[in-house]
Structures are given as C-alpha cells and as structure tokens.
C-alpha cells in the first residue's frame, strides 16, 4: 500500500442562485426558472503516492484550489470519492473526520490572511496540538511548539509575538509550523509561495523540501507557476476548467508534453534566457466561464488543433505511455 490519497471521479459545483426565489429570472418579458451552477471540478481522478509530491497546476479558475478544499472537506464533495490511506473519507461526519484531520493538514496561500492576528504565534501552534492531544499538557505543547518553530526558522523569543510583527515570509513559516503541529502524514499546500518575493519563495520551497525529507510527508501541491512545480514535484496533473487534461510523472510531462493546453502553458512561461516568448505563439483567448462550459472538449475554442469531433464530444482519458495520461482527441 503505497498510495496515501486516491481521488476518484471527484466533482464539485456551487449554486449561484440559492432558494426558489433566486432561481426565478425575468427574461424577454417572461419569468423563467433558471439555475446558474459553477462547475468548479468536473470528474477528476488522481492519486498521491506516499512520500511523493503530486502537483495540480493550472491557471486561475481551473478548480485546483477547490479540489484541495474538497479533498480536505472544507467543502463537501458533490460526487466521486476521496480515499485517504485506504479509507473512504467522502461521507464522514465532522466528528468521524477528526482522526483524519490530525493526519492531513493544509498550508494556505496568503500569509496575511492565514494567521489570526489576535493570537500569539505560540498559541497558533499549541492550539491544534492540545486539541488533538499531540501534547498532554500546556508546558509540553509549548516545548514542542518551540521545537517546530525552530525547525521552520522562528526563534523562541519571537514566539510570544503577534503575526503582524512578522514579514510575509516569516508568516508563511508560521503557517507551515501550524500544519506540522499535529504531526500529519499528508499536507495539502495551496499556492504556498505565490504571495512571496522571489528570494523568500526560494527559502520556503527549500524549507518544504527539507521538512519532507525529515518527516517523510506526502504533499499535494497546488500552484500556477510551472517552474516552481517542476522544481518541487514528482508527479503532476495539469488542470483546465475543472478537468485534469494531462497527468503523469514530472519527466513524462516536462520532457514530452502532449496536450495542446500543456504545450501552450509551457510556451507562455517567461524565462531568464529571454527567448521563450519571442519564439512561441502562445495561445489566443481566455479561459471560458465555468458557468457555461463549452460543449465537447472544454479547450476546443482556444485549441489550435481543434477538429470537428472536439466541439462535439468530450475526449476520454488515454494512457499514452506508462503512467502518462492525456485527455485529448489527438491521441
């Protein structure tokens, strides 16, 4: 058993029009019943191996953060299953979920919004410890908290301060320490470095990798920055409009990108060598709204290779080479 997380046919959608009254619209002189539904995650499956980093990468609105929040049950899934360490956690109640909460934790994107500014740093770390019984007493919790803070690079004398006394990078370290507090096996990191300066971003990425080595975590890493993803992951899935359009190992995808969207993403990344954008075509258009999803393949209206079938039928996932899946009619 070396899979820690298995997601099967996961779906998530949000109703924009709540209640009966909200669904009634006035259109062309008539009242009509119309429901607008945001289809954020549409039937995605992937698994994260123990001790590995699986990344979900995509542009804003592709559903990668919603996927993360659905897996950790901040939002109840609308379809499909989530298996954690071999157990189906999809329909667990709040209390049943508690023992899994201890084993999976989350690191958030915004270092300014992810810490309660009214709580001292030490309490931010000890609160989950005491709640989950990781530490028996307050003094033991304090000792453990200082140890963890030390590991993420926060000195003991800084522990009694409030979050606003720290810089963005340091706050992100504290957020990481909070996730570590309950000694989890699996961490979901939702864009943990996208709000940070480059030099700080490198520090945090290094820290995440060092911690992984020390504790043997598995990560589900959510990011939009391909270079970061390439640096940190073992496997990845590329998301577009709530679908994983391509997934496989890092080597598979970076050396041999197949899906036209993946290719377009790669060619849009600015590079230090300064040659990428000039020579690439990029892609036209922007991501369509996830309220009115396009027919057929979601990418067809931006795809340079679109054929008739792409507008009519959603392609099925095909394994092109060992462990390298792609969702495209071309293959």
């Amino acid at each position: 058993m070396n899979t820690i997380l298995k997601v099967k046919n996961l779906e998530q959608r949000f109703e924009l029009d709540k209640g009966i009254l909200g669904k009634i619209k006035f259109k062309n002189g008539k009242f009509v019943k119309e429901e607008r539904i945001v289809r954020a995650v549409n039937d995605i499956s992937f698994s994260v191996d123990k001790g590995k980093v699986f990344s979900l990468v995509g542009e804003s609105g592709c559903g990668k953060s919603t996927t993360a929040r659905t897996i950790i049950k901040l939002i109840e899934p609308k379809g499909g299953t989530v298996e954690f360490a071999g157990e189906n956690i999809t329909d667990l109640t709040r209390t049943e979920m508690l023992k899994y909460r201890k084993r999976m934790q989350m690191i958030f994107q915004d270092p300014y919004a992810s810490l309660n500014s009214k709580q001292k740093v030490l309490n931010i770390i000890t609160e989950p410890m005491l709640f989950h019984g990781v530490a028996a007493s307050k003094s033991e919790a304090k000792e453990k908290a200082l140890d963890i803070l030390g590991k993420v690079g926060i000195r003991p004398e800084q522990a009694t301060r409030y979050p606003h006394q720290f810089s963005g990078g340091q706050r992100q370290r504290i957020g990481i320490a909070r996730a570590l507090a309950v000694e989890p096996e699996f961490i979901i990191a939702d864009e943990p470095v996208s709000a940070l300066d480059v030099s700080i971003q490198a520090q945090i990425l290094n820290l995440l990798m060092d911690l992984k080595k020390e504790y043997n975590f598995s990560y589900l890493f959510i990011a939009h920055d391909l270079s970061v993803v390439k640096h940190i992951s073992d496997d990845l899935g590329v998301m577009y409009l709530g679908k994983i359009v391509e997934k496989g190992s890092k080597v598979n995808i970076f050396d041999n990108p197949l899906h036209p969207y993946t290719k377009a993403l790669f060619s849009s990344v600015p590079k230090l060598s300064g040659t990428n954008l000039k020579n690439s075509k990029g892609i036209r258009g922007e991501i369509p709204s996830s309220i009115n999803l396009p027919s057929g393949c979601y990418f067809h209206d931006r795809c340079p290779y679109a054929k008739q079938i792409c507008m009519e039928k959603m392609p099925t996932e095909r394994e092109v080479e060992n462990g390298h899946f792609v969702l495209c009619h071309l293959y």
Partner: protein
Amino acid sequence: MAKKILEVRNLRTYFHTFKGTVKAVDDVSFDINEGEILGVVGESGGGKSVTGFSVIRLIEEPGKIETGEIIYNGENLMKKSENQMNKVRGKDISMIFQDPMTSLNPVYTIGKQIEEVLLLHEKDLTKSQRKQKCIELLKSVGISNPESRMKSYPHQFSGGMRQRVVIATALAASPKLIIADEPTTALDVTIQAQILKLMQNLVEEHGCALMLITHDLAVISEIADRINVMYCGKIIETGNTKDIIKEYKHPYTEGLINSIPDLDKDKKKLESISGIVPNMFDLPEGCNFSPRCRYCKQICKEEEPELQQVGQSHYIACHFPLKGGEK
C-alpha cells in the same frame, strides 16, 4: 546614440511616517532612451514602484520628493506646477497599474473612459474623430469588434481584456513614455504572455519608451532592453539585459537569479538569499545588502559602495564585484 526621453538625477523620495523616515527612493539616477524598454526589478520594499510614481510626481502624503531632477524631453518636471503636471500626465507620460480590476471606473463604458483622455489631451478632435480613434486604439490592443465593445462596461470584460483596455487608455494621447507598474502580475501566465507581447509590439509601433516595473526577473529578461536592479531604495546594478542576466556582478542580482527555479535546468536545491529585506527605518551601516550577502567583508559593513562602471553601460554598487556571472 539614441535620444534620451527621460533623465532622472539624484532622485530622493522619502516617506515621513510616525515611526520615522523611510528612504523609499534614495539617490537614484537613470535615463530612458526613446523607444527603449527599461525594466526595473526588485523585491517588495525595493522602491521600484515609488520610483515610477515619483517620475510623474504622484507621491502622496506622507511621501515627499526631497531632491532630484526629473528631466523629460529637456524640461525639468520638478519645476512644473501641479496644473502643468496634469498636462504632462496622460499626455506625455502615462501609467499602467497592476490591478486591471480597479484601474477602470466601473460606472462608465470603456469607450467613455478612453474618450475622456482624448477630450483632455487632444482637444482639436471632433466627436466622430474621437470615436474613430477609440476604435483604432481598441483594435490595436487586440480587442475584436471594437465598435460594440466600446459600449461595454468594465465588468463585462475578463481580467486580461481589461488590462488591454487599460493599455489602450494609456496609449490614447500617444505618450512618449509609459510607466507600467507590475502590469501582468495579476494575470494568468498564458494571458501574461499575450499582454507582454502586445506591449512589446506597441512600443515598437508607436516608438514610445516603456518603464516596466516588476518583481519578476524572467518577465523583464523576456522584453526589456536594459535593467535596473533596485534594493532598499537604491539602484545596485544597471546594464543591458544580457549583461545583467548572464554577466551579473552584484551578489544580490546573483541571489535573485539563483532563487528562480528554472524550467530548463534541474536544480537540486534553490540557492536562496538568506534573511529578509532589512527594516527600512533602520538600514544597516555600509552596504544595505551586507547582512544578507555571502561575500560580505569588513568594509561592506562600514562603507557604502558607490556605483562604479564595470562594463560598457554596466554599473554596479558593490565593493567586490563578481567576476562575470560566476557561481
């Protein structure tokens, strides 16, 4: 030798806050030539945005431009009155901001907003000429069906489209210089690529200069001709793009470049710069970068380095310049 469109000399912009004075821009001098793209790069707190705002004198309390000359086309902007400055802003120098969601007024159609600029700065155009110009501008930034889109409101556009409209507005009065403050930071990578290409083409077509302020060195190296690297309110390295990226000589530039994970190379571990940007109220003695610099020697803690020439149009402020991109 290309003609200089903007010369900034010894610019100092300070913020007088209740905790003391922040030298957001401290003795900065640089030029921009006609038709050139100058990239200004640095981390938050480096003073790059304040430099941009200082050039068009949009510094609000508690900030103040203490000294310096901003010479645009031979005229010192510092000597102009607020009224005269309003004629320069938008007409000669225009600005593009980071957030396309907030830099357009939600209650006016985008046609109205572009026309407003024309009304202000191109007074001799007739109504139909203005409309024609609007359509041309929108077309030039890649908005299809400009006639009907002119009547749309900003919320009917997506983020990337809005940034195109913002660029069209900035181009409306055919400025000689555009200052773009993190214009693609809020955009997705595929859209960023579109916008960067668009800006590059527009600069070529209109022959105006662009000052591109961003934290992303990769973005700058894709489109800029020259780069200013800023740290703690000072320019610490300046030169042609190729010199900076390949032959960087300042340890901070080296740190920045090594911090970026590269798609083309596999790095085991990122070589990050240790520590954090120093407290702007209490800058270190000597070189501002000394506490984070791995080559730091005694003199770095005592004496502030001056900008020195290390190559043709390549200057750095460091006591111990690296030998051409060494690792």
